[in-house]
């Protein structure tokens, strides 16, 4: 297991290094925005990776509600936490890109606002998991995750449903959308790297959560055994 983790980590490191090279060197410079457009190669893959994590959280939460399996609960928790990390990157890189291109850091359009709400929903989920006491915490968190996921769909569709300051989709946006092949390659390489990196974080976080849970159970068992004596 340890060897597999080290090999996986090395693969992820190589992919992230390649992604950085693709974004900063290999991808052509965009005609109107210039080099600042290269933020795109971190901003968009981070958003897609956050979506993947929240989808994983949604699926694990639904199955948890049906089967009450502790492993699924730990996986849901880990995927929400990793998703929040990537969503934080999206919310920080977006305004840094917006300032030189739009002349403003932030605007309350449908895409930006719904992304901020998404971040707040999953931060609330993590706060609930961290501070709530009682036996129903996992169930309440799973229910919050299921309803919170509606905002993932809204964030994705916001630029298709509304006229927004945020650009229309350049990948999967229908007629008139599209990217130069070298730009698309750099985007997909970074998405692959970030998705694999998220997988690595998820693995690590899930193992930690399971071990913590087992330690808590062992402490509880000891306490009960102590009381019985």
């Amino acid at each position: 297991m340890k060897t597999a983790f080290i090999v996986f980590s090395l693969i992820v490191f190589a992919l992230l290094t390649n992604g950085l090279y693709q974004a900063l060197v290999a991808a052509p410079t965009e005609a109107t925005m210039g080099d600042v457009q290269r933020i795109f190669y971190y901003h968009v893959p981070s958003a897609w990776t956050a979506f993947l994590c929240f989808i994983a959280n949604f699926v694990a939460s639904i199955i948890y509600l049906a089967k009450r399996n502790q492993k699924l609960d730990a996986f849901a928790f880990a995927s929400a936490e990793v998703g929040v990390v990537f969503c934080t990157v999206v919310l920080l890189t977006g305004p840094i890109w917006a300032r030189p291109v739009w002349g403003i850091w932030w605007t309350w359009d449908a895409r930006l606002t719904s992304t901020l709400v998404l971040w707040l929903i999953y931060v609330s989920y993590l706060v609930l998991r961290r501070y709530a006491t009682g036996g129903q915490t996992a169930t309440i968190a799973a229910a919050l995750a299921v309803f919170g996921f509606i905002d993932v769909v809204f964030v994705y569709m916001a630029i298709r449903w509304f006229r927004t300051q945020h650009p229309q989709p350049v990948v999967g946006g229908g007629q008139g959308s599209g990217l130069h092949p070298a730009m698309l390659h750099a985007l997909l390489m970074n998405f692959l790297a970030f998705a694999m990196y998220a997988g690595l974080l998820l693995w690590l976080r899930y193992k930690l959560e399971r071990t913590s849970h087992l330690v808590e159970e062992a402490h509880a068992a000891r306490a009960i055994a102590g009381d019985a004596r």
Partner: protein
Amino acid sequence: MNKTQYLYAAYVVTWVVHIAYLGYLARKAARVRREVEDLKR
């Protein structure tokens, strides 16, 4: 700030967030490892 500085700022901010999270995981892993060792004793 010129446009290139915004580009570097975005990349640096991204890695600061990820490194901070890795630091959080490392601290948490060390704490859990200590708890497991305590249980074994």
